């Protein structure tokens, strides 16, 4: 990866589509600083009123789980069915508990 020293840093964009909902990752963009990233995110990702609030985070500030360890990380939850309400069979009269 050569000649990237003059590139604007990469930011991840999160948009809240309407009040009451979570911010959701919707893409990324390059910007010189946070203020510019917010402004560009508005222009790029909310041209049709897709958002009421925007977060931007420098991509290099995000720590992610290792995709190579996906199975050892997440599979252990597979056999813990007792963590779900549907695991418990109750009398019909109590169906809404």
């Amino acid at each position, binding site marked *: 990866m050569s000649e990237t020293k003059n590139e604007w840093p990469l930011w991840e964009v999160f948009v809240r589509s309407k009040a009451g909902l979570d911010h959701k990752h919707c893409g990324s963009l390059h910007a*010189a600083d946070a203020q510019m990233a917010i402004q560009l995110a508005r*222009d790029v990702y909310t041209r049709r009123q897709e958002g009421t609030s925007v977060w931007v985070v420098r991509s290099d500030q995000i720590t992610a789980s290792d*995709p190579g360890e996906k199975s050892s990380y997440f599979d252990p939850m597979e056999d813990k069915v007792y963590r779900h309400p549907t695991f418990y069979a109750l009398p019909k009269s109590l169906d809404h508990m």
Partner: protein
Amino acid sequence: MYTQAMDTMGKDRDDTPKAVRSADELAHQHAFDERIDAGEFIEAKDWMPEHYRKTLVRQISQHAHSEIVGMLPEGNWITRAPTLKRKAILMAKVQDEAGHGLYLYAAAETLGTSRDQLVDALHSGKAKYSSIFNYPTLTWADMGTIGWLVDGAAIMNQVPLCRCSYAPYARAMVRICREESFHQRQGFESLLTMMTKGTDAQKAMVQDAVNRWWWPSLMMFGPPDSESPNSEQSMRWGIKRISNDDLRQKFVDVTVEQSKILGVTLPDPELRWNDEREHWDFGAIDWREFWQVVGGDGPCNRERLAARVKAWDDGAWVRDAALAHAAKQEQLKEAA
């Protein structure tokens, strides 16, 4: 705006798949193939064959370049749009194309290629973009015709890409397709207005634009299947879902019906319904012209590339100033 069977454009010499070497790689390859067969999506940080990565970088970046270069033929008419309404619509559309280019560049960057490298490949002429943008936009009717035919062909090409095995590309395509439908509808409506309420001269202008854009639009689907050597591999990987010829036929079938509503003639004397095939037959495409335009000798290739390079060079001081400003603000914050 759209891609054209870009997989056929790669002429890189080191582009052939390499023989698998280590046992470790073999195991990775096997697991990867299984995931593809199961219809799973591949994410940026997942293991993938080098050739899969390269094919995607090439296709996604060429798709991105097409969106960006595609702003030029339409930008040509912004200041001369006939009404304020049409001007606002055209500006919104051109802005969308810039956005589409950005979504796609971002998807290509997840594969480990920097934006500067991608842009550099375009500017040096190493990377291609869709041949359709190397045709000139001579009249206002070209704006409507591009929306109807070029964006129509683009949508046909792009919808299957929403199910592409590479997830960041598929996600970008979902967003793009959602916005693309406005492009085609505004184009058709603009032409329909001229064909139903326009003067004879305006109607003739529409017909002339359709005559000029019809064949290049059919070429957007890429060479015939028999001459698309990379298609099979892309199909195997779930990067491509429907063949060039099948998509082209689908486009012809729907467009013929639309042309009747519009009241224009498609410039192909061999166009006729085939009862047996239940499709429209159409005349032979001039593939010599296609390869000539792809190869750099279309009506506007030099002009388009020169305009891109000039815009990039003229904007250099803005990019530098923004970085310098950000660095200075950072310093001030640290000092405080």
